[in-house]
């Protein structure tokens, strides 16, 4: 092997990588926050909404879960301008990630709600608690507690899959890596470093979410 490793390409461009990592985390935070809220609403609509709303949620979930993420992203970024909807690369990426996460999130939350014994809901009604309050304070905490690990996984997957948003020139972590690689031709060093950064971010996210989960759902499982 005549290759000499030289990590100066990484140390010189650490600012680019940190900026990229920050953007990846920012996009994931937006997608996770908005996506979770929509997932809970979507799951409730899928279970108890009027027929037309249930059909819309069903079509949405199937459409997004059965098409590639990169195609959804290209459609939003390159396709929608033809209809007069022009989003910046960052907005398009955040929207695509949110839409994608929501589709999976709806199915996960729905499974969680179905896992809560019907007696819990009926007890809420019997005590005269309004249906919306029954859902928010009785059913939902138990439902989320059951599917919490699956939700965390889905958020981490969304973060990792966000690497493709570099294709629409969002300057995320992968974009920074590709840029450094094309400038320095240090492919091994660059992708090695970026692999470690993604791994570190994913493990840190899981650890934080699991810690938060233990606090939030103590005694609910």
């Amino acid at each position: 092997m005549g290759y000499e490793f030289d990590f100066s390409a990484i140390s010189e461009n650490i600012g680019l990588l940190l900026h990229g990592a920050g953007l990846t985390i920012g996009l994931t935070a937006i997608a996770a926050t908005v996506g979770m809220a929509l997932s809970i609403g979507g799951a409730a609509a899928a279970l108890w909404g009027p027929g037309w709303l249930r059909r819309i949620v069903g079509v949405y979930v199937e459409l997004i879960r059965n098409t590639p993420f990169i195609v959804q992203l290209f459609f939003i970024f390159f396709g929608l301008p033809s209809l007069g909807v022009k989003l910046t690369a960052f907005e398009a990426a955040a929207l695509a990630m949110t839409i994608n996460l929501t589709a999976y999130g709806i199915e996960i939350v729905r499974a969680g709600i179905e896992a809560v014994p019907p007696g819990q809901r009926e007890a809420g009604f019997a005590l005269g608690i309004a249906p919306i309050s029954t859902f928010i304070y009785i059913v939902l905490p138990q439902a989320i507690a059951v599917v919490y690990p699956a939700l965390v996984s889905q958020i981490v997957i969304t973060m990792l899959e966000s690497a493709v948003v570099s294709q629409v020139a969002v300057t995320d972590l992968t974009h920074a890596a590709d840029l450094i690689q094309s400038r320095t031709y240090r492919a091994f060093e660059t992708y090695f470093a970026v692999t470690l950064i993604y791994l570190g971010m994913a493990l840190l996210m899981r650890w934080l979410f699991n810690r938060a989960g233990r606090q939030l759902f103590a005694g609910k499982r």
Partner: protein
Amino acid sequence: MIFSLSRRASLGCGLALAASFLVGAMEPARADALDDITKAGVIKVGIFEDFPPFASLNASMKIEGYDTEVADKLAAALGVKVELVGITGQNRIPFLTEGKVDLLLSIGYSDERAQVVDYTDAYAPYYIAVMGPKDVDVKDAAGLSGKTIAVNRGTLEDTEVTKVAPADADIQRYSDYSGVISAFLSGQAQLMVVGNDVGATILAQNPAIEPVEKFLLLTSPSQMAVKKGETRLNAALNTALVAMKADGELNDLAVKWLKQPLVEGF
């Protein structure tokens, strides 16, 4: 160079020997290429098969473009027929040095290559330009300030525009030309930086937003190459080129294929 090419060269010699054995005629080892071409009545021209608008397969699977028409006209000037030989970026220099082709088109100048081939005069413009719609007013690098510019990441276009663009220019780096072109045509980027080959390919599609050249970043005209030492062939080709430039034939080809007239004094 001879040593590093020895395996290819010996393979080439073997093939050439077999071929000459088949046709039953041993050529003199050091014949003049121009004489050979005139005697055979055919000039073998090495040409890319996938390099629009210079040369690419058309709908009827025939190679056509700026280069093929130049080759036709050069052959006509020499009074011979043209035989197009498909080449790749990797094999074209060995093809020339081993005599599988007499002439290479679309070859940029480099000192390394000049060691093994002889260059003719420039026959085709090649340059990198900042392109944008008519109504976007940009005349120079300073005008890129505050603009969104699409480039193909890591290419010469990327490095050149990065060098000259002001700090507040938003350079969007895509991973391929289709990303650059899509970003420009969908209006996601106001400007793009591409070579005149890509620019002409876009213009040939009659896009909704017609890109216009704003200013040039780098010019490196394409030349032709003949085998090292074939000075008579080189001179004959240059004479033909001068004639094509003088009577406007080359300019017609440039307008037809490259969608831009040749610059003054080309």
